[in-house]
């Protein structure tokens, strides 16, 4: 571990330890993709020897690591199709100012600054090198389009922009005309590759895995159920392992009584159990119908060493093909036609018959997923930090009264210049 960390910090080109201030918009102790991203990125950066301080709203102070500064309790806000718990208001503003003043940061990294949150406030009051990561996974937002003029002054203070996927980048291009650098989401490879499979799994009869909200139609669980029913008739040993929150009874209703014992529902799982679940299956199936930005779960299944069978969405294709030198021919997983249960059943049948093919896919997946490992991804983020620091050579500071005083002093000169022009 230390060896590879040394190597990557060499790649990153940042020799001195940086003081990094990171702002997480959502309650740090509640589950969520952005929070996991912030936590794992901060830990990877700390392993490189950098100083990281995270400012985030926290509901339960005992549940967060020591490098997190609490911004207080949260209020629920609707954003990006779900309810987010954020802290927003004058009290937060004051705390952010104080945190910025005391932190002496070389770079400020905010996450999802276009949502009304602490990240946006931090952008508003800070000056110096600011890096922002956009996580959104959808095309257009009417709210953001309407607020475009009001958000532009905040957006233009950001020195370095990162998007976690092509879709997130597209979102910035459409709304603000500025794309930034695309850096994929990281995955803690070791956590998944070293997890202990559940007792008795994967077994010898073949086991399939599905992870996610199975009641949500676009996740495609119905498709998998249909293919599973078609296959389970001839394969009494075939098993299906499902994890994720949702109403299990309606999901199971689609599956005939006599094969229902071949399906195991785990319900919502912790991060550790998720890793164990992914280690317990031969084939991980991602039958999603659309709306995926990056395919985080694919990288996790790949890290766990499962053979991946996914619908042919662009996001999935990109993740699976990103490893080899020859693209598609070296894909780290198989694709089937999105939305087609027959095609899924056919592909599953072929994979179940061919253990060698599964081994090849799993080996390629391990190779491909290495580039999404957090040390590698964090090194790329450090490159953006270095670029932002070079492009805004100053410390991060709260943009306080000093700015106003300076503006007043400059005003007569500006007036003269304007009259002459």
């Amino acid at each position, binding site marked *: 571990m230390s060896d590879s960390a040394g190597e990557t910090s060499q790649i990153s080109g940042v020799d001195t330890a940086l003081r990094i201030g990171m702002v997480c918009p959502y309650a740090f102790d509640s589950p969520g993709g952005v929070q996991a991203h912030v936590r794992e990125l901060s830990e990877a950066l700390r392993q490189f020897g950098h100083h990281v301080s995270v400012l985030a709203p926290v509901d339960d102070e005992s549940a967060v690591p020591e490098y997190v500064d609490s911004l207080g309790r949260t209020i629920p806000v609707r954003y990006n199709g779900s309810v987010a718990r954020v802290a927003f208001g004058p009290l937060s503003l004051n705390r952010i100012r104080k945190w910025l003043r005391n932190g002496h940061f070389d770079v400020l990294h905010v996450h999802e600054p276009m949502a009304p949150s602490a990240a946006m406030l931090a952008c508003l009051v800070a000056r110096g090198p600011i890096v922002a990561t956009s996580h959104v996974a959808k095309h257009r937002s009417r709210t953001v389009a309407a607020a475009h003029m009001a958000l532009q002054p905040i957006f233009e203070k950001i020195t370095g922009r990162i998007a976690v996927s092509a879709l997130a980048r597209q979102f910035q291009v459409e709304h603000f005309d500025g794309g930034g650098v695309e850096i994929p989401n990281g995955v803690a490879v070791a956590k998944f590759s070293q997890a202990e499979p559940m007792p008795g799994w994967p077994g010898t009869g073949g086991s399939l895995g599905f992870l996610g909200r199975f009641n949500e139609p676009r996740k495609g669980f119905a498709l998998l159920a249909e293919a599973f029913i078609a296959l389970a008739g001839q394969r009494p040993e075939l098993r299906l392992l499902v994890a994720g929150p949702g109403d299990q009874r309606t999901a199971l209703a689609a599956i005939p009584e006599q094969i229902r014992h071949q399906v195991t529902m785990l319900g919502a799982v912790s991060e550790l159990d998720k890793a164990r679940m992914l280690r317990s299956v031969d084939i991980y199936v991602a039958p999603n119908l659309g709306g995926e930005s990056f395919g985080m779960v694919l990288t996790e299944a790949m890290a766990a060493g499962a053979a991946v069978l996914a619908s042919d969405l662009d996001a999935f294709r990109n993740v699976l093909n990103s490893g080899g030198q020859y693209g598609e021919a070296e894909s780290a997983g198989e694709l089937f036609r999105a939305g087609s249960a027959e095609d899924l059943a056919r592909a599953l049948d072929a994979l179940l018959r061919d253990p060698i093919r599964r081994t090849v896919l799993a080996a390629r997946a391990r190779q491909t997923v290495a580039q999404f490992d957090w040390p590698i991804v964090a090194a790329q983020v450090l*490159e953006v930090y270095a670029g932002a620091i070079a492009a*805004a050579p100053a410390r991060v500071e709260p943009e306080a009264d000093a700015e106003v005083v300076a*503006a007043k002093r400059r005003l007569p000169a500006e007036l003269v*210049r304007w009259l002459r022009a």
Partner: protein
Amino acid sequence: MDYWLSAVSLVSAWVLYVTWLAARLRRLYVRVDAASRALDAALVRRALGVAELAVMQPVALGSRADATELAAHGALRALAEDREAAESELTRAVQDALWSAVLQSGALESRELESGFTEILTQNRSVETARALYNDAVRDMCALRRRWHVRTLRLAVHRRRPTYFDIDATLTTALPQPSSTATPVAGPRS
């Protein structure tokens, strides 16, 4: 009285707004300037790195060593108006050398091979980052300059309009696919 009061408050609000616009403009100029200097430094580092590799380790570049060195010197000498073309030329020269090295060594040793190019690839990535940061700054600047107030009050008239820096800067160890129409290096990634 009320009439005057509201007129005065309207005018002062307007003055405040214009002052704020001017402050934003100034801040963006500082940002564009600094980003431009950072981009320049990254480009020079890359060209020097390539030139050094061509002189110190011509083996790594194979038969492309001369062409690559020439492109590096061309990039270092280029004047402002030819800079984009010269830097793109350098990217293409390095990419050619990289591909022929990948082909010669075969896919198996590609990891070892990369090590000769590691420094160049790193420097190239910082060029890509610096270019993205600079172009984003220019884009924000242009958006603000297009605003009605900025144009009519000629707030930005005494400063030069910044221009985008548009070059090919993508290096890849992946070989171009015979089936696809576009090679990875073709076309700038804005």
